[in-house]
């Protein structure tokens, strides 16, 4: 897992579907591994293959369409709803994505993504439509996501929008820290809290 992210400049894969749930991102039957690796090959498994068979890919699904590629996944609103399975974030990251863009993320997925250095970028409905249109016009349209500046830009049109992220999480992502490092560093405060409640 690549730690720390800042500027990602890449073409994008469009998934203009709303309420993409984590059972679609990674079906439950693939959650039986005991390591974090290798989930990418089953990303969107049942949308990718006919009858669960890798020999019969569904040619109309974006991940099977060679004109689309890149490190940015762009999806409809309420992306990642449903199960808390972190395997969804692992699968997306393992498949080579560093950013997911949507107008709205489900809570648990958003946390899981952040904990795996997969940046969830929330844009307005209208900007999301602009991105889909840009990709429809040119499948190789380049999007730039700049975490330091908190901006997302459609490079060809220079259309840009600012996105929100809390300052703590931003620092973590830029520097490759994770929450466990932070929590372990305040163990004394946690013990003091425990002494006070007991």
């Amino acid at each position, binding site marked *: 897992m690549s730690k720390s992210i800042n500027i990602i400049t890449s073409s994008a894969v469009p998934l*203009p*579907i*709303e*309420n993409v*749930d984590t*059972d*679609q991102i990674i*079906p*439950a*039957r693939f*959650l*039986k*591994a*005991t*390591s*974090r690796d290798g989930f990418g090959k089953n990303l969107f498994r*049942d949308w990718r293959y006919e*009858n*669960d068979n890798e020999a019969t890919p569904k040619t109309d699904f974006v991940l099977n369409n060679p004109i689309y590629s890149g490190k940015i996944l762009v999806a*409809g*609103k*309420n992306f990642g*709803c*449903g*199960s*808390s*399975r*972190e*395997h969804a*974030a692992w699968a997306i990251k393992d498949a080579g994505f560093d950013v997911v863009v949507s107008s*709205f993320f*489900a*809570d*648990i997925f958003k*946390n*899981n993504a952040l*904990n*795996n250095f997969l940046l969830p970028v929330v844009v307005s409905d209208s900007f999301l439509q602009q991105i889909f249109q840009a990709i429809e016009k040119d499948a190789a349209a380049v999007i730039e996501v700049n975490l330091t500046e908190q901006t997302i830009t459609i490079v060809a049109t220079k259309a840009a929008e600012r996105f929100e992220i*809390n*300052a*703590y*999480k931003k620092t973590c992502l830029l520097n490759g820290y*994770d*929450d*466990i490092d*932070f*929590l*372990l560093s*305040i*163990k004394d*405060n*946690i013990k003091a*809290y*425990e002494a006070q*409640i007991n």
Partner: protein
Amino acid sequence: MSKTLFEKIWDKHIVQQIEDGPSVMYIDKHFIHEVTSPQAFAGLEKRGIGVHNAKQIVATADHNVPTLNQHLPIQEELSRMQVDKLIHNCKKFGIELYGLGHPYQGIVHVIGPELGITQPGQTIVCGDSHTSTHGAFGAIAFGIGTSEVEMVLATQCLLQSKPKLMRINIDGVLQNGVTSKDIILHIIALTSASGATGYAVEYAGSAIRSLSMEARMTICNMSIEMGARCGLIAPDEITFNYIKGREFAPKDNDWDKALAYWQTLFSDADAKFDTEININAADIEPMVTYGTNPGMGVGISQTIPLAETLAEKDQPSYLKALQYMGLQAGNPMKGQKVDYVFIGSCTNSRIEDLRQVANFVKGKQEAADVEVWIVPGSKQVEQQAQAEGIDKVFQEAGFVLRQPGCSACLGMNEDKIPAGKYCISTSNRNFEGRQGPNARTFLASPLTAAVAAITGKVGDVREFLN
């Protein structure tokens, strides 16, 4: 200052506040299971650290366990490896495990409450989104990812941003045949599958107060299906009576002390909510879903909405869902053919659910061409059903009472619905492929599922009562 129920519990659990960032929240109880914990333990080992306090953690095996012949070794290799890994990790870190063969084994959200581990005022997490179930006791309970499981194992804390607050008031008297499952499906249909994202939801009102603890758990269980961080209900006499005397409930002086605190857990009269919704209980019909998210549900007398009634940008996703389900907009749900009936899951697998179904089907027979699976939520539920003769009622009707686990709710074990088949299910999700690749799910209450079990069709339970 006046506070909501959520704020009273939240404020008590904040260890510290990070400037311009989340809060460090202390977690009282941590439930773990075989599917979302192995990578968290591996993370601890990689860092060379142990668990912060094993006594605050309880483990069970539920997600991928078989529901037949649990005394035999698990046949499916990967499932067996995950369950073995859980046994190994619990032994290594000194964590209590109610695994296969243990009299307390069962679905994590069924066993926590029935053992008295779940209590008012607590913060409770588990690597499972339906952890919201425990909120029925007046607790802040929510699902977390595996990295967060690792954080809680390591530090008993999590980083959380304070959610907005919503209250949903349901007042009045429910129609005969309408259950708490119908209340929550009605709410989600009203708010949509994302309508409560970013909120903690408190359920209140006379209709909620009149419900048993098990019925309240069904409501809080599905809070996540409208995107809520958690759902909660203020504890009352019904709550206290439910907890009293259970295995891990406080005893003697501890009970008096706990009770005095629990009695302070309610939203003050002038507490502020960011959003408030009012629902008349009498307006709620038995509900059934037609689509591929839990918000796509209608009252049993209604028809599947026409695409034209939706905003243009919402239509493609809607039509995709109907195509997957093989249903026509404008058609009624009543009368729709059903192939499988699944009564189980952390939503509806408790003893009251099984009693309701047994009372309804007693003396009736399973419909031809329908297969009925009844999966109790825990070993204790299974034993209670046997003690009451409910297993015999099911047997005479032609149903199979299986052994405890998550089963066909998510099809991680062998209990999968075949492609293209329709299953009426008392579980919580009707997502594409949730119950098996290309399986089609209608979510409904145990009573509505029981109607389908004996008629082979989606029907209105009210026509069978009185």
